[in-house]
C-alpha cells in the first residue's frame, strides 16, 4: 500500500497544502525582497519544504516544540503561525510575530511552541536540548524537534547537546537538514564524514538518513519516531537529505553549483512528487490542485497586503521587551 493511501486523503492533502503554502510564501517573500520591502538576510526554504512539512506534521503542538535555525519561514508556517504575522515580521512591522524586532531569522510563537529562528549556526541546539529537559523534568509527554543545517553539525554545540541528551534520555529529535551546502561550501569539502547520519553514533544515538524530497516517507518515519520518543523519552537523530533551489540567502547567486545539478534536483521537487502520488490514488484532480494553489496564492497576497498596511513599530517599542517586569 502506498504511504498516501496508508495515511489517507485528509492527511496527505494537508501535507501538500502545507508545502505549497511554504513554496508560494517564499516566492512572495523573494519577490518582496527584490522590491526592497524586506531587508537584511533572508534565507528562503524553497526546495526543502518536505522536511518541515513531513516532520512537524507528525507533532502535537500542544505538548511538542519546534526550534531551528535562520532558514525558518517554512517551520513557522508548518507549526500553523499566521502567514500574515510572518510576512509582517519580514517587513519589520509592529504586527509581526516578534513585533518587528526579530525579522527573517527570528520567527517565534509561544502559543504555537515555535521557539525560533536562531541566527548563530548551531546555537539553537543546546537550547532545544534544554526544552527537552523541561519536558522530562515536568514529566510531560512532549517531544522537541530541533533543526539545524549541515553547516552546524561540526559546531561544539551539536556534540555537547547530543551527549547531554543521551546521558539524560531527553525527548528530542535532532534533525540535520542536509541541503548539501553550508552557505557556498559543499558539505563534503568540510566534513570528514559524508554520511552525516553516522554522527549520532559517537553519542550512542542511532542515526537514520531520509530522503527529504519524499514528504510521505519523512512523515511516515516521524509518526513512528515521535510516538516512540513520546512513550519513552530518548534522543534520536536524523539526517534528512534535501536541496535548496535558491541561493543561501537573497544575496547569493549560487555559482558554486552547476545548472545540471540544480536541474537534477528540480526533477525531484517534493511538491510535484506528492501531487503525482495523490493523483495516482485519485485524491486530487488537476482542477482541485489549481484551486488549492489559487487559494494559497491569495493567502500569500493577503499576507503582503497585511504587512504593507501594518504600522511601523512606535519608537517607544525600542526599550520594550529587553527585560521581563516583575
Amino acid at each position, binding site marked *: 500500500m502506498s504511504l498516501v493511501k496508508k495515511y489517507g486523503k485528509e492527511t496527505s492533502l494537508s501535507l501538500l497544502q502545507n508545502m505549497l503554502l511554504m513554496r508560494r510564501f517564499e516566492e512572495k517573500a523573494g519577490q518582496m525582497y527584490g522590491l526592497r520591502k524586506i531587508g537584511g538576510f533572508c534565507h528562503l526554504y524553497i526546495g526543502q519544504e518536505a522536511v518541515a512539512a513531513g516532520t512537524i506534521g507528525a507533532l502535537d503542538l500542544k505538548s511538542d516544540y519546534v526550534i531551528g535555525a535562520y532558514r525558518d519561514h517554512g517551520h513557522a508556517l508548518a507549526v500553523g503561525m499566521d502567514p500574515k504575522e510572518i510576512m509582517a515580521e519580514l517587513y519589520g512591522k509592529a504586527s509581526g510575530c516578534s*513585533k518587528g524586532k526579530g525579522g527573517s531569522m527570528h520567527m*517565534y510563537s509561544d502559543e504555537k511552541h515555535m521557539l*525560533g529562528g536562531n541566527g548563530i549556526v548551531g546555537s539553537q541546539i*543546546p537550547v532545544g536540548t534544554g526544552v*527537552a529537559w*523541561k519536558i522530562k523534568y515536568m514529566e510531560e509527554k512532549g517531544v522537541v524537534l530541533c533543526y539545524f543545517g549541515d553547516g552546524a553539525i561540526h559546531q561544539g554545540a551539536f556534540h*555537547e547537546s547530543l*551527549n547531554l541528551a543521551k546521558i539524560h534520555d531527553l525527548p528530542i529529535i535532532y534533525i540535520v537538514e542536509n541541503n548539501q551546502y553550508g552557505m557556498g561550501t559543499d558539505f563534503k569539502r568540510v566534513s570528514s564524514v559524508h554520511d552525516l547520519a553516522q554522527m549520532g553514533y559517537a553519542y550512542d544515538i542511532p542515526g537514520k538518513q531520509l530522503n527529504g524530497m519524499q514528504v510521505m516517507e519523512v512523515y511516515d518515519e516521524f509518526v513512528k519516531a515521535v510516538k516512540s520518543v513520546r512513550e519513552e523519552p530518548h534522543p534520536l537523530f536524523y539526517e534528512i537529505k534535501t536541496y535548496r533551489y535558491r541561493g543561501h540567502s537573497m544575496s547569493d547567486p549560487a555559482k558554486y553549483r552547476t545548472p545540471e545539478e540544480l536541474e537534477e534536483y528540480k526533477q525531484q521537487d517534493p511538491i510535484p512528487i506528492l501531487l503525482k502520488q495523490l493523483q495516482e490514488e485519485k485524491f486530487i484532480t488537476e482542477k482541485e490542485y489549481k484551486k488549492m494553489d489559487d487559494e494559497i496564492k491569495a493567502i500569500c497576497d493577503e499576507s503582503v497586503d497585511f504587512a504593507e498596511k501594518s504600522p511601523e513599530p512606535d519608537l517607544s517599542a525600542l526599550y520594550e521587551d*529587553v527585560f*521581563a517586569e516583575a
Partner: protein
Amino acid sequence: MNREKYTTENKEETKMPVITFREALRQAMDEEMARDDRVFLLGEEVAQYNGAYKVTQGLWEKYGDKRVVDTPITEEGFTGLGVGAAMVGLRPIVEWMTFNFALMAYDQVVSNAAKTRYMSGGQFKLPMVMRGPNGPAEYLAAQHSQALQSIFAHIPGLKVVSPSTPYDAKGLLKTSIRDDNPVIFLEGELMYAWKGEVPEEEYLIPLGKADVKREGSDLTIVSYGKPMRISFEAAEKLAKEGINAEVIDLRSIKPLDEEAVYASVRKTHRCVIVEESWPFASVGSHLGWLISKNAFDYLDAPVEMVASEEVPMPYNHRLELAVQPQVPKIVAAAKKVLYLDD
C-alpha cells in the same frame, strides 16, 4: 553598618549567626529550591563532589539527581540547556566552575539568554542565574585569574550582580533566582571563606540598589564585589589620617544605582572608583563617565580610578599583586582627588 565590616574575625556580642560567603550562597539556593520546584542547579561537580568550591555542599543529598545535576565539562552545552529550560518555564541556576570557563558559554549568554526575549517581541521570559567565581585568585596565571564582568555588563538584556558580603550574597542571590531575567552573579574564589553576619529570618535585597557601607564626607569610594574589602580597609586607613571616606557598594552593576553615587558625590565632591577588572571599557570607566556627565558641577577633582593593570595576569605572586588594586593604590588615589599628593 557594622555587619559589613570586612573582617573574618568573629565580633563580640554578635546577635546574628556568623557564616561564610559560601554558606550564605548555599542557604540562598537551598531556600529557593525548597520554595520553588522549578529551580534546579546544574554545573560541573555541583552534585556528588559537592562543588569545586563547596558552595553547593549537601544540596545533591537533599534534592537528588533531578534538581542538582553534574554536567560534562561543556559550558556551551549546559548553559544553552539552561537557556532552553528557562524559556519554557523552569528556573535554572547554572554554576560555572569559574567565569574563565564561562567564555566557552559566551555565545549562549549573549546570543540566546540576553536576546531571546527581545527578538521574540517579549514572548518569552528567561528566568535563570549564571553564577560562579569571577576575578583574580592567587597563583593561577592569566587564564584562571581575571575579572570578566565588563563583557557581561556590556550586553543589554543581562542583569549583573556582584555582592561583597555574606549578607548581601544571600539576599541578592535569592532575588536573582526569583528574577524573570537572566542574571550573571559574580562571586570570588577568595571571598568564599569570608565571614559575616546573616540573619536567620528570610530577607531579600533588591537588584539595582547600592549600599552605603561606610558613611563619610571627604570623598566617595565606589566599588563592588571583592575590592569592596580593600576599599573599606583604605577608608579605615584614611580615617587614621583624619580623612573621612564614604564607601559605596554598587551591589548590582546592572541595573546600576547611579543616583546613589551622584548623591554621595554631591556631598563629597570627590570620587575614586575601585574595581579589579581592566579599566578599558569597564564598569568603572563607564561610571566615571556618568559621574563626569551628571555630577560635573559638584566635582572638585577629576574622578580617579583604581583598576587592574592592562596585562594578562602573571603567575609570580609579587607581580600578580602589583597588577591588582591594593590598599596603598586606593589611598594614593584618595589623596590625589583631595589634592593631598605626598
